[in-house]
């Protein structure tokens, strides 16, 4: 047997021994909910929740890889980006399973939209967000995510409307969106042509003024902590 095959076989053997031991170790090493994928519950609501949770884990892996990519070298980045896309694709699949099992799971539609947007599939992302918001119209994260999808499609007016919608109810999401708007402006000011210059300039003026207003006005969550 070649050397590499011997090493491989040893690994397989080790895993074959380790897995039952880990399972037998009890709940200390097994996260809740504890059922492995092959034994997913039959209740569609619970199944949907499980797929959603798996999707979130995959999304979190993508986030961890994104953070790594941000600090990686030029050589390492392309490989990491491939891995990131892979995680998002897997996450999307889980969210899709989740909404198939439970079409009322607005969080899954929201996360599905997020994953699609991260892969540049903005139109599909919008559809997912629309579903999320049809189920939960005050779902602030979905409003913000959808607005970022609008920005991805250069639909700036709709992004502005979303910002105003968020401003009075969820300053945290509104602030996130404002940052996304500033990033959009930076990209389009550095590489003009895709959007009309005057439209970019007008949007820049709007963002500047809204930033000023945001700085002047306290959010609801700040008010109880404020020193008067």
């Amino acid at each position, binding site marked *: 047997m070649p050397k590499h095959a011997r090493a491989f076989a040893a690994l397989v053997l080790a895993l074959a021994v380790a897995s039952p031991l880990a399972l037998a170790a009890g709940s200390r090493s097994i996260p809740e909910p504890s059922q492995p994928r092959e034994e997913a519950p039959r209740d569609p609501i619970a199944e949907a929740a499980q797929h959603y*949770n798996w999707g979130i884990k995959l999304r979190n892996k993508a986030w961890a890889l994104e953070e790594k990519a941000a600090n990686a070298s030029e050589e390492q980045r392309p490989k990491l980006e491939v891995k990131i896309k892979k995680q998002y694709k897997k996450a999307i699949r889980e969210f899709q399973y989740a909404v198939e099992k439970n079409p009322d799971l607005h969080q899954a539609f929201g996360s599905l939209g997020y994953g699609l947007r991260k892969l540049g599939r903005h139109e599909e992302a919008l559809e997912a967000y629309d579903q999320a918001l049809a189920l939960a119209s005050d779902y602030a994260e979905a409003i913000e995510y959808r607005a970022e999808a609008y920005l991805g499609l250069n639909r700036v007016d709709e992004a502005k409307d979303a*910002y105003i919608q968020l401003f*009075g109810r969820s300053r945290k999401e509104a602030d996130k969106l404002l940052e996304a708007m500033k990033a959009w402006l930076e990209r389009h000011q550095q590489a003009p042509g895709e959007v009309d210059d005057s439209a970019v300039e007008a949007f820049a003026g709007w963002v500047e003024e809204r930033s000023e207003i945001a700085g002047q006005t306290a959010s*609801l969550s700040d008010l109880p902590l404020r020193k008067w």
Partner: protein
Amino acid sequence: MRPGGQSRLCGLAGVLIAASCTVLGCAKAAPIRLVEKQAVAGPVFDLRLPPGFPAPLVPADNPLSAAKVRLGRRLFYDRALSGNGTFSCASCHRQELAFTDGRAQAVGSTGELHPRSTMSLANAAYDATLTWADPELRTLEDQARVPMFNRHPVELGLADREEQVLERFRSDPDYVRMFRAAFDAEPVPVTMDSVVGALASFVRTLISGDSPYHRLVYRGEMDALSESARRGMRLFFSERLGCANCHAGFMLSGPVVFEGAAEIEPTFHNTGLYDIDGKGAYPPGNRGLYERTGRPEDMGRFRAPTLSNVAITAPYMHDGSIESLEELVDFYAAGGRLVETGPWAGDGRRNPYKSDLIRGFEIADGEEADLIRFLESLTDPGFLTNPSFSAP
């Protein structure tokens, strides 16, 4: 090893690796629980909150309903709700003046002068405390009883006349119907508690949030303010003027309460209006928080009210001693007031208990005009004429 065997080994390895990762690798991640959206119990009555305004607190023992609000509105405007039948709540809380009365000091049903000015009821549902300087008065229900039963001064004058007043409502079939509809769970619907509950419910609906300022900030109407008012807004929120230190939030007031908010500490400020003895004293009967606590440092401390509709609610301060917005800006620019003559003469600017936030500031004439334009932009014309708040 044969090629096919190696392939089967890889497949088995894949399954085991996957299973092991599921069991071993993912054990490090905290479990993610899918939190179902909880149904939140809220008022049945639709307050039609303006953008940026959270749900106000509604006591569990006095939930809002259309029937209660309707009854409360009728009572609010009914002179039968006074001992001598000559006054109603609306006598001092006039809608066209944002539910104040335009007087320096309120006058009660028997002609007695109140030491203090009527406060606006606009957005009172959100006030952390009510009246000018009572840290214990936290609900509209408790506050409604103050003008109803006060003896010194007499306001509505219901003390010792409760049954007489209730009999007016009991003998009116319309009122009996309205009380029964509003308090259908009560064995005896026409009671003073029901009157208080209905009044508080109506006042809870007096929400003002559609001024040009609010439309700019919360509706994104970027041309809602004139250029002058927009400059004035920058001044208002500037560190130099510091207005927002005491008047902040969605209704430019002191601390507010609302659904889901953490508990808040009410605050009161001495703004340097008086110093009649050189040691910080305010006029007797109008010493603010000091009258509750007896602590010297609480002398002259009063609540910072909302600036919603401020251009309509002159005169200003707890005793209405500042007549106009111009005088108000000059007062704060000076860091307090010098009263040169009369029984309350003294230099409030030097009051030892004056708030550190009242520092005075430089302001040019043009800037003062801009600031006043901004304060005028806090007027909500719809609120002043909304038929839902008017006499039925």
